[in-house]
C-alpha cells in the first residue's frame, strides 16, 4: 500500500503556495470534457461540486436525501474557526495551526493542518460574499466567540445554526451551477459500489431510492464527501441516514482506512430518556462559554440542583483544569464527565448526567442576554426534556458526535486508489486523535472550496484516462455485486428487525469501544461483533422488494456495513496501545487519570488494508514527524 503523503518540501508556511504553483493545470477549454462524480452534498461535497462547476468541469452530484440542502452538516450549531484575529486577542495562522495540532494530541500531519489554518481566513470571506448571515456586532462588523481548546475568540457563528447557514451558502452556489448546467443533481440516490478500472476509480453504482433502479455512473474521477461513521454506535448525534456505506465499499475495493478507532465523544448532549431513544441531540459547545459544569460533591446526593449549596458542588472542570476550565477540549471534558459518573456522583435517571448550569450567567448578564445568545438551544432543550433551563440546570452527558478516522488521503486528498478523492469528515486527515470545536465546518469548506478544486486538476492533467463505457466487465461486475446483495438482504426473511440489530451493535460498540477502552473489553467486542453479523445475515427481516421505495432495505445495507466497520474499529483500538485524544486506553494513563501517549511506538497513522472476507486486514503505518511543534504532553491545566 503506497502511503506517500506527498507533502511538499520547503518551510511549513510556504508548502501550499509552492505546491499550487507546481501542480499541473487543465486548460479552461478542456475542463468541460472531464466528468467528476461527487458523492455527498454536505459542506465539503456541495462546496467542492460548486467550485468545480465554476471552474467549468462537468460534475454529477449525488445524495441520499431529497435535497442537497439536507446533508447533516446542517445540524452543526456552534460555529466555524478562522484565524482572522478580528478580536486583536493574539490569534494568528500559526496559533490556529498549533491549537489544532495540540488539540489533536499530535496525531495529525503538520503540513495539512497548516494549510487548513491558512485557508480558514478565506472561507469566512467567501461565505460572507455568498450572503451567509453571520452574527454581527452593533458596529456592523462580524462577531466572534470562544470554543473549547483555545484561549482566543476565533469562532464565527450564526446563532445556534451555523451549519445550516454555511450549508445553505454552499447549496446556493451549487444550485447556481445546476442553473448554469455544469452540475447535474441526483438526489435520493445512494452509492452502493465503487467502480475501479485498471486500478483507477472510474465510477459508482447507485440505487435510485424512489424506483429502486440500480445504475452505473462513469467519469474521470470520483470524490466522496459522505461524512463520518459515528452511527455505528446507533445512539449518536448524527442524522438517522448518516452512514459509512460509500467509504466502506471504497475501503473494500482497496482504499486504506486511517485511524478507524478515533471517534469523538461530545461532552454536552441531552441524556438518554428511555429504550425508545432513536438518536441523541447535541447542545452546542458554545454553551460552555457561559454554563458551568458540576455534580454534587457527595455520592448519591438526590436533592434538586437548586437545593444544593455552592460549597457542596464540584465544578470539576474548573477544579481540574483552572486555565481552560469549562472550555477544556471535548475529549478531556467527556472523560471527566464519565469519571464523576463512574464515581457515583452523576445526576438524573441512572446517574448518567452532569449539570450545565446557567444560574451564575443569568444573574450576571440577565436572562435576556442569555436568550439572545442561546435562545434556540434553550428552546430545543425544553422541547425534548420538558424542563426549563432558565430555571433548572440542563442535564448533559457525552455522546458520539464525530469520527476523526476515515479514508486515508494524501496531501492532494486522494486515497490509495488513484482517482478516488475523499473530503470532509469522510477522510482521516486534519484532526488527529481529537477534533476541536468549530473545526469540522472549517475543514469541510477548506477541502471543498479551496483544496480539491486545485488538486483534482493536477490529477486530471497528469493522468491519461481511457474512455470507458457501461459494457466494461468491471462495470457489469460492480452492478451485479449490488443486485446480488440487495437480493440477499431481501431473501433472509428472519425474525429480527434491522433496527433491533443496529441497536445491539451500538450497545456493543459503546461498551467495548466507547469513551474508555481496554484490552479485555476490545477482545470481547471482537468476539461478539462477528457473531452479531452472522445473526444479521441469518435472521434479519427486510420486507418488500428492491424495485420500490424501501426504507428498511436502505437501512439494512447500511447496518450490514456498520457490522463490518465496527470490528475494524475494535481491532484498531486494540492495536493502538496508548491513549491519545478521544482514544483512551485504560491501561495507559497518568496517575491523575490523564491520557498517556506513546510517541516512540505510535506517532503514526494506522492505515488498514482490506484483504477479503476471509483474511484479517493488514495494519500499515504512515509515520508522523513534527518539525515545527514539539511533541509534549498535552496539558490544559
Amino acid at each position, binding site marked *: 500500500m503506497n502511503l506517500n503523503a506527498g507533502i511538499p518540501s520547503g518551510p511549513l508556511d510556504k508548502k501550499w503556495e509552492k505546491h499550487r504553483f507546481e501542480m499541473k493545470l487543465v486548460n479552461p477549454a478542456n475542463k468541460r470534457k472531464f466528468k467528476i462524480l461527487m458523492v455527498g452534498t454536505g459542506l465539503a461535497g456541495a462546496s467542492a461540486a460548486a467550485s468545480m462547476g465554476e471552474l467549468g468541469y462537468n460534475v454529477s452530484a449525488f445524495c441520499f436525501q431529497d435535497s442537497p440542502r439536507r446533508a447533516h452538516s446542517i445540524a452543526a450549531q456552534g460555529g466555524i474557526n478562522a484565524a482572522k484575529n478580528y478580536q486583536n486577542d493574539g490569534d494568528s495562522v500559526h496559533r490556529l495551526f498549533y491549537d489544532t495540532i495540540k488539540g489533536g494530541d499530535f496525531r495529525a500531519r503538520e503540513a495539512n493542518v497548516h494549510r487548513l489554518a491558512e485557508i480558514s481566513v478565506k472561507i469566512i470571506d467567501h461565505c460572507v460574499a455568498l450572503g451567509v448571515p453571520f452574527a*454581527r456586532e452593533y458596529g456592523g462588523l462580524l462577531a466572534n466567540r470562544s470554543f473549547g481548546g483555545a484561549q482566543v475568540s476565533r469562532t464565527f457563528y450564526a446563532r445556534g445554526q451555523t451549519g445550516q447557514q454555511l450549508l445553505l451558502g454552499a447549496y446556493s452556489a451549487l444550485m447556481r451551477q445546476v442553473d448554469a448546467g455544469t452540475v447535474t443533481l441526483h438526489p435520493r440516490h445512494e452509492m452502493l459500489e465503487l467502480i475501479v478500472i485498471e486500478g483507477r476509480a472510474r465510477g459508482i453504482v447507485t440505487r435510485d431510492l424512489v424506483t429502486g433502479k440500480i445504475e452505473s455512473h462513469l467519469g474521470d474521477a470520483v470524490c466522496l464527501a459522505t461524512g463520518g461513521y459515528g452511527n455505528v454506535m446507533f445512539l449518536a448525534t448524527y442524522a438517522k441516514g448518516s452512514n459509512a456505506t460509500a467509504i466502506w465499499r471504497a475501503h473494500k475495493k482497496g482504499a486504506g482506512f486511517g485511524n478507524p478507532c478515533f471517534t469523538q465523544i461530545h461532552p454536552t448532549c441531552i441524556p438518554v430518556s428511555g429504550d425508545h431513544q432513536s438518536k441523541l441531540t447535541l447542545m452546542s459547545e458554545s454553551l460552555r462559554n457561559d454554563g458551568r459544569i458540576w455534580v454534587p460533591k457527595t455520592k448519591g446526593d438526590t436533592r434538586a440542583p437548586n437545593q444544593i449549596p455552592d460549597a457542596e458542588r464540584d465544578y470539576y472542570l474548573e477544579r481540574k483544569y483552572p486555565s481552560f476550565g469549562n472550555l477544556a477540549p471535548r475529549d478531556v471534558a467527556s472523560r471527566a464527565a464519565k469519571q464523576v459518573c463512574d464515581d457515583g456522583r452523576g445526576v438524573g435517571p441512572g446517574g448518567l448526567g452532569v449539570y450545565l448550569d446557567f444560574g451564575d450567567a443569568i444573574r450576571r448578564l440577565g436572562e435576556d442576554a442569555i436568550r439572545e445568545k442561546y435562545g434556540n438551544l434553550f428552546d430545543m432543550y425544553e422541547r425534548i426534556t420538558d424542563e426549563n433551563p432558565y430555571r433548572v440546570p440542563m442535564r448533559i452527558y457525552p455522546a458520539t458526535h464525530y469520527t476523526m478516522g476515515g479514508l486515508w488521503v494524501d496531501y492532494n486528498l486522494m486515497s490509495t486508489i488513484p482517482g478516488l478523492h475523499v473530503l470532509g469528515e469522510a477522510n482521516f486527515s486534519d484532526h488527529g486523535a481529537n477534533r476541536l470545536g468549530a473545526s469540522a465546518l472549517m475543514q469541510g469548506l477548506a477541502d471543498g472550496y479551496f483544496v480539491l478544486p486545485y488538486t483534482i486538476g493536477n490529477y486530471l492533467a497528469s493522468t491519461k484516462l481511457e474512455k470507458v463505457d457501461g459494457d466494461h466487465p468491471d462495470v457489469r461486475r460492480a452492478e451485479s455485486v449490488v443486485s446480488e446483495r440487495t437480493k440477499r438482504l431481501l431473501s433472509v426473511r428472519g425474525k429480527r428487525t434491522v433496527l433491533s440489530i443496529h441497536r445491539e451493535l451500538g450497545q456493543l460498540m459503546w461498551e467495548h469501544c466507547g469513551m474508555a477502552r481496554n484490552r479485555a473489553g476490545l477482545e470481547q467486542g471482537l468476539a461478539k461483533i462477528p457473531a452479531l453479523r452472522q445473526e444479521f445475515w441469518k435472521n434479519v427481516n427486510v420486507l418488500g422488494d428492491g424495485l420500490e421505495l424501501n426504507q428498511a432495505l436502505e437501512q439494512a445495507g447500511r447496518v450490514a456495513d456498520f457490522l463490518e466497520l465496527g470490528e475494524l474499529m475494535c481491532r484498531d483500538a486494540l492495536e493502538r496501545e496508548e491513549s491519545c485524544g478521544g482514544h483512551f486506553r485504560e491501561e495507559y494513563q497518568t496517575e491523575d487519570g490523564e491520557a498517556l501517549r506513546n510517541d516512540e511506538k505510535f506517532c503514526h497513522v494506522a492505515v488498514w488494508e482490506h484483504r477479503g472476507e476471509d483474511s484479517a486486514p493488514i495494519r500499515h503505518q504512515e509515520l508522523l514527524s513534527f518539525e515545527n511543534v514539539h511533541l509534549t504532553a498535552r496539558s490544559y491545566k
Partner: protein
Amino acid sequence: MNLTLRVWRQKGPEVRGKFVAYKVDEISPDMSFLEMLDVVNERLTSMGQDPIAFDHDCREGICGMCGVVIDGMPHGPRRATTTCQLHMRSFHDGDTITVEPWRASAFPVLRDLIVDRSAFDRIVAAGGYIATNVGNAPDANAIPIAKESADLAFDAATCIGCGACVAACPNASAMLFTAAKVSHLALLPQGQPEREDRARRMVARMDAEGFGGCSNHEECEAACPKGISVGHIARLNRDFLRASLTRGRREGNGGEGGSG
C-alpha cells in the same frame, strides 16, 4: 399512552391511497412523534406488514426532511416545532391521531407520507443565490452590515425548506418559502446587484411548478416551524413589482426602455 393512528398509506405515486387505522399501545410521553412511528414500524414489521414510509433525517428540527400533517396541522399542534421535535406529551391517552402527507399538486406523493419536494430546489436554482465564484471575495469585514439588517436577513434565512407553508396554504402557494430566500438576500448589500432579476425569475419558476397564488391567509406563518414572518412576502411583492416595471430595460430587448 394508548392511541389510535389513522395513517395515509399509498404504495406509489400512481396508486390510490387510503387511511388505515392502527391501535398503538404503550407509548411513552417522552417519545418524539417519529420515535412513536419507529415503534409502530417495528411492530408492523414483526407482523409481516409493510412499515409506514416517512421522511426524516437529523431529528433535531433543522434539516427540513421530516414533516407530516397531524390532525390537519402541518408538523402537528405545537407552534414553531418540526414533527421530529414534537413529543407525545403533546397528546392525550386515548387520542385518535390522523397522519397524512403534505397535500399539494406540486408535491406529488412518492409513498405513504413521503412527497417529492424537488420543486423547491428548482426555485432556488432560478436565482436563489449570489453569483460569486470562489476566489473573488473581499475581506469579510470590508462591508459592515448594520446588525438590524443582518438579524432580519438571518430571520429569513432560518427557513429549513420543509414545505409546511405549502401544506398549510389553501392555495398550496410557495410564497413564504420563495419570499424567505428572496428577502434574505435582498436585505444584504451583497444581494443587491441581482435583486430584481432574482425576484422575477424565482416567482416565474414557482408559478411554473404549479404552486398556487398567495391570497393572504397567513396560514403559512402559523405553520412555519421557524416562525418566518409573512412580512417577507410583502418584501418579495415589492421587489417583484419593481422587477416587472424595469424588466425590458434590464434584458435589453427592444433597446432603451422596452416594455417597461
